[in-house]
């Protein structure tokens, strides 16, 4: 334990400085108003202390202007804070174009992360510095929360649905990953690390940990094993809709509603196929809930994503095989040992 007592966590993401700026602004406001009240209360209490037991102070005339002032001035200040906080929040919600994609499953009491290139980690996540990373998260059981204090980033991971968030690391190092939503007995053991690496080192790490099977390829294998392919045939002759080129496109449902075939829609259509049946097809597909876990579902989603979609998709749109390599700078730089720790 060091002798120094830090007041701020390390700033290691593009958002960290912006969050800290609002925090500092609010500390200034709080110190100002806190001191104002404290000084007024103490000085009034001393200056107007009771000097004789029978003292009856004369009444003070009330001032509507004063009351209006201490209603409107705080209102103005909090509106500034509201707008500032909202602006930050929307920036956090907008994923930048062409991010590197990582799939995360929370499970009591561990984090499982999968890279599109097939690397799978437990309670660890390796990412390159300077590149936006989009996380698609879900939970196998209860609600968890993916919290990296150094990135000022936190997102509840809710079972039964996909949530997304993103960060762009700005500083290499190893940072805490916490579960921030209480999830049962070993909640405080559901911790890990996020390792931010220089791009070259990250490339080397990718190469070192390659399994030879990308996420989409693993999904393709599942697609065969679960016999999805018997109905979802590439020749449009199956009982289920053809899946090529579907990802990211709107589809028309039997109800006439149009939805976008995104990650969440595909997941739902596997575990609860009757919920949103595509127009022109019968609701004959059985549920696969319980037959395939959340990691497998993410592999299937990655496979369907690889079958094509809008050209704007990131590395995920690459074909199933061979394993794609995220476009990163200076691939030739010398590798560093992976998993370096503070």
């Amino acid at each position, binding site marked *: 334990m060091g002798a120094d007592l830090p007041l701020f966590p390390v700033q290691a993401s593009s958002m960290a400085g912006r969050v800290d700026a609002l925090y500092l602004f*609010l500390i200034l406001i709080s110190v100002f108003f806190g001191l104002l009240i404290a000084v007024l209360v103490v000085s009034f209490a001393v200056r107007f202390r009771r000097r004789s037991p*029978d003292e009856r102070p004369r009444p003070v005339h009330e001032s509507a202007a004063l009351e209006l002032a201490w209603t409107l001035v705080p209102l103005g200040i909090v509106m500034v804070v509201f707008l500032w906080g909202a602006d930050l929040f929307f920036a956090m919600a907008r994923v930048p174009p062409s991010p590197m994609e990582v799939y995360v499953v929370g499970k009591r009491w561990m984090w499982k992360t999968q890279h599109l290139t097939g690397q799978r980690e437990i309670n660890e996540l390796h990412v390159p510095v300077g590149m936006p990373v989009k996380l698609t998260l879900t939970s196998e059981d209860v609600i968890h929360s993916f919290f990296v204090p150094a990135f000022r980033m936190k997102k509840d991971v809710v079972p039964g649905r996909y949530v997304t968030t993103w960060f762009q690391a700005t500083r290499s190092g190893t940072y805490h990953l916490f579960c921030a939503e*209480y999830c049962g007995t070993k909640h405080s053991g559901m911790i890990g690390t996020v390792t931010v690496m220089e791009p070259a080192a990250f490339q080397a790490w990718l190469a070192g940990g390659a399994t030879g099977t990308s996420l989409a390829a693993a999904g393709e294998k599942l697609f065969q094993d679960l016999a999805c392919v018997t109905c979802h045939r590439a020749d449009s002759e199956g009982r289920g809709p053809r899946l090529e080129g579907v990802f990211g496109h709107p589809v028309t449902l039997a109800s006439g509603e149009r939805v976008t075939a995104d990650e969440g829609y595909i997941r739902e259509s596997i575990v609860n196929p009757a919920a949103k049946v595509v127009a022109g097809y019968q609701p004959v597909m059985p549920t696969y809930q319980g037959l395939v876990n959340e990691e497998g579902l993410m592999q299937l989603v990655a496979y369907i994503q690889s079958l094509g979609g809008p050209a704007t998709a990131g590395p995920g749109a690459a074909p199933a095989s061979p394993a794609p390599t995220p476009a990163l700078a200076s691939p030739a730089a010398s590798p560093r040992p992976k998993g370096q720790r503070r």
Partner: protein
Amino acid sequence: MTTQIGPGESGPPRPPVPPTIGEPSPPRVNYLNVAYGVKSWLLTTDHKRIALLYLAGVTLMFFLGGSFAVLIRLELVTPAGDLVQSETYNKLFTMHGIIMVFFFLIPSIPAVLGNFLIPLMIGARDLAFPRLNLASWYIYMLGAVFTIYTLVSGGVDTGWTFYTPYSTTYSNTHVIAAGLGIFITGFSSILTGLNFIVTIHRMRAPGLTWFRLPLFVWTHYATSLIMVLGTPVIAITLLTVVLERALHLGIYDPRLGGDPVLFQHLFWFYSHPAVYIMILPAMGVISEVVTCFSRKRIFGYTAVAIASLAIAVIGFLVWGHHMFISGQSTYAGLVFSFLSFLVAIPSAIKVFNWTATLYKGSVSYDTPMLYAIGFIGLFTIGGLTGIFLAALGLDVHVTDTYFVVAHFHYIMVGGAIMGYLGGIHFWWPKITGRLYPEMWARVAAVIVFAGFNLTFFPQFILGYLGMPRRYHAYPEEFQVLNVMSSAGASILGLGYLLPMVYLVWSMRYGPRASANPWQAKGLEWQAASPPITENFERQPVVTEEAYAYAPEEEARVV
């Protein structure tokens, strides 16, 4: 206020009386000595006796909940989870939360002080429904029995928030018993609120118009509205948890076709306004104490009265600020954030008005005033840090960390409990007819204030550094701040034990109190100390506004 009451105590304008502290009331029958025996207490319909029954109940629950806090802080002295097992730790913070929120903070001021004082303050003989009042105490105790059963049968580990699907599907602890305990206690809250609303509407003394009411009554009126309108929602919510857990109805667990986030909406729809159930009555106490000990009418009476109602109403519309990162829509977050900033304004108005009340007053530093000044300071910090949490982008980082833990303890412990202790001291002479030892009480108030800040201020820093709440073990770099917090907690614990000792002592050995030892305004001070069962010898009639502390010739100028 002008009243016609018993001989020897009437007659406005009263010349300034010499300090009456220690001067014995004439020995006579009062609500305490009118009957003896267990039956005379357990079957009483006297609001004052029921208040004391509640006092016994909430004090027991406070020390039960507090003992869990002691164990939590002991465990957190070291980074490793070495004192108790994880499962035990999780049960400790769950039981601490359930007991403190539902069995201490929510009933404390309304059911003890409100019950005792509202009829006295409005010049009534009792609450509108005395038997319903007794029933509400029994219902409270039945809920407490369920909670204590939960405890002895092995406890519950869901956190006081009961988040699904953990509570409905995954926890192997006594969720149903704990849920039913809260469900049952909720009815006592609803009945108390209903009783207050009817009483305040129908039983005010002649001349006591709405805008002559003491602010304590206003805040209890606002609180009662929340109790009556909000509590049914938590009742239904907990019942659905029990149904999903027992019968596997798919309401919240996605595997059964439910939506886990729906639970959070329902839970916080009650549990955020519940924060105002805890803090509004304390604000009422502070308004009474600040005016009495500065001998001034409150600055901006109307603004403070209306602010209570504004808090109660807007408080119902901000529940989503607990869920900014839960997966609710970004735009919903925007609306809830905006409304949360609005609810800060009436609270700020109150703080400014209390401060302005001191201006050109006659300020004395008796114990209730020390608690009131402590309240203003701690509530200001609690309120200002609420602004941090309402700011969307900043909340993402600090939510579910110790920052939130520190924030709500500043409101609930620094605010509500300081208000409660201040109120207990202020009205102790009225309740018991005895004076407490002033020196010990001042020492205790200072210890509570110092211990509180040492306990909870470091937690703001811990939270911003990223320590999540509900962690049994934590990384080593957080140890220094945790040790500070635990050290503060031991001081705070001492500060809470002291009043327990000297208040009990004073019930037997304290000097007898006069009817109005503080020379305070308000009808309750015109009844004897302790009051007779019927409260007043004759029906009081009110001819003045509240807090008419100014000399008679000046009063008309106001």
